[in-house]
């Protein structure tokens, strides 16, 4: 199937981008991995589940309703494993329409082509490795929000919430409301850091009020909030039994009994697709890490390739729809479907909305930025790459042996070569490499490779069979 615009990812940015483009008459397809549009913040529960509405679910429902009326073709439950076309053509040839290869919800492989591609691929969570992080019962903060909001299941009965950023308090408050005991909130940030972030929040009083309500709920319930603390280790035999925490200066270590630890050290933009297209990237710690280089209308360095939402730099769910709309309008303009005057008029409102919401988002993203000190203390025997079992000692050995960047460390140690493709270990590993080679820019990133997601071999092969392998005729003797 051929479209004007394909949008990858149906979070707030993708939903808004597809809606905007379809409303203005473009043929649009929106591809999403989850069973329903929404993304992580506005994730909807499975069919047949009715979960009481809150502010997030109402915003999500409004974006979903607009999308469904827009005329965009929405394909959910599909796993996009391949990106191609565009600039990815043999040298010297003209670029072609973009192509996305996917495995459908029904298990049947399909592909779509589109003249323009808007990437709204969101983020995944950064969890810096620590002893015991492989114990069952240790989950991500984002995982906890999915369990609470979209599954109606508690991660545990007595939970420690740890890490950085506003998600700490969102998860803590939601756990309390859902009936769990919150044993402690362990926050890397000091009170001073939060106070310095406050002025930026004034741009969106609604978000400020929500954050204040979360904190109030925790205080009211008598939950200890340990500022300037980190998790030293997760402890237990077969599953988590206790969380050992310590002040950042190494004093006041204590063990807290818990059957779940929800931990997250910020969000990392998912740039697999822009990396696969070899778009220009820059390292911006305060936006979550490596991000594609963009202009004010979300254009990447590749013609007709756009990026919006947190996947192009963490600015939060409130800023995402406006950035999606900006990308859609730029794509329409660049495809000749919207003239310059109309484009200028149409982009004014989303541009203003984005600037305002991004001010809050930036302040929160700074709270979630990677803290190198957390990586410095990772012990040699700690597993960094869970897929391949690579320890810090092995990464250090590779660096001693002469590895100079992430690709080489990957080749020396297999770190990042497993099925998660470095999404889980990449940040810890890159920071270890960066400390040795002189910064994240020098450490670089693992080259984007297909498949973007694990897919069964038969999906790649299609009906290609052994008998179809071309065998050249034997040379005459």
């Amino acid at each position, binding site marked *: 199937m051929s479209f004007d615009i394909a949008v990858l990812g149906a979070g707030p940015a993708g939903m808004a981008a597809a809606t905007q483009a379809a409303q203005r008459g473009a043929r649009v397809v929106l591809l999403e991995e989850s069973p329903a549009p929404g993304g992580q913040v506005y994730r909807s529960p499975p069919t047949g589940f009715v979960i009481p509405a809150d502010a997030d679910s109402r915003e999500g429902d409004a974006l979903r309703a607009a999308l469904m009326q827009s005329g965009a073709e929405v394909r959910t439950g599909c796993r996009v494993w391949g990106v191609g076309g565009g600039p990815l053509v043999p040298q010297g040839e003209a670029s072609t329409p973009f192509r996305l290869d996917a495995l459908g919800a029904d298990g049947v492989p399909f592909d779509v082509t589109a003249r323009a591609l808007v990437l709204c691929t969101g983020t995944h969570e950064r969890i810096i490795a620590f002893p015991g992080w492989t114990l*069952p019962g240790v989950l991500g903060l984002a995982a906890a929000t999915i369990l609470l909001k979209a599954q109606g299941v508690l991660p545990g009965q007595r939970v420690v919430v740890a890490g950085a950023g506003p998600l700490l308090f969102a998860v803590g408050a939601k756990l309390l409301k859902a009936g769990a005991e919150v044993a402690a909130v362990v926050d890397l940030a000091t009170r001073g850091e939060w106070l310095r972030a406050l002025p930026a929040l004034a741009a969106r009083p609604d978000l400020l009020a929500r954050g204040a309500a979360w904190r109030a709920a925790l205080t009211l319930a008598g939950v200890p909030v340990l500022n300037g603390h980190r998790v030293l280790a997760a402890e237990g035999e077969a*599953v988590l039994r206790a969380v050992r925490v310590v002040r950042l200066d190494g004093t006041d270590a204590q063990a807290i009994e818990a059957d779940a630890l929800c931990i997250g050290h910020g969000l990392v933009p998912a740039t697999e697709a822009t990396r696969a297209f070899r778009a220009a990237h820059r390292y911006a710690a305060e936006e979550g890490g490596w991000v594609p280089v963009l202009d004010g209308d979300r254009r990447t360095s590749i013609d007709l390739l756009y990026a919006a939402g947190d996947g192009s730099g963490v600015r939060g769910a409130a800023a995402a729809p406006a950035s999606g709309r900006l990308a859609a309008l730029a794509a329409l303009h660049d495809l000749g479907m919207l003239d310059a005057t109309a484009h200028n008029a149409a982009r004014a409102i989303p541009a203003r909305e984005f600037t305002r919401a991004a001010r809050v988002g930036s302040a929160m993203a700074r709270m979630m930025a990677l803290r190198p000190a957390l990586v410095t203390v990772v012990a040699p025997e700690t597993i960094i790459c869970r897929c391949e079992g690579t320890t810090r000692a092995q990464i250090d050995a590779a660096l001693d042996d002469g590895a100079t960047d992430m690709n080489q460390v990957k080749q020396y140690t297999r770190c990042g070569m497993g099925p998660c493709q470095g999404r*889980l270990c990449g940040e810890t590993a890159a920071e270890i490499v960066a400390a040795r080679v002189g910064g994240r820019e020098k450490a670089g990133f693992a080259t984007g490779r297909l498949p973007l997601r694990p897919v069964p071999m038969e999906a790649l092969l299609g009906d290609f069979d052994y008998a179809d392998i071309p065998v050249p005729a034997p040379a005459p003797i």
Partner: protein
Amino acid sequence: MDAARQRDMLIGVANPLRIAGISRPAEVPFTFNGKILHAPSGEAVASALLAAGIRRLGEGPDPTRPRAALCMMGVCQQCLVRVDGRLAQSCLVPVRTGLVVTSA
């Protein structure tokens, strides 16, 4: 109150990890390593196992890296199980009647 809803509420009370006040589809049976479990149709297999008190989903490649739900969004590949014989991320597979789930 109809019978199904009443049943759903009873289920919510019975399981301390399923959050109360949420209406869910009827529970359906599936198996994990041969044991019969029940969960609302459509709940993720990873959530259903968590609610059943099963957090260690398998022994994984070595004892230091057991299978367990971590990201719940299909990124980390830590919650791999076999569903009807095929490798699958338990956080992405919805519970259906008769699913045969085994450790991977």
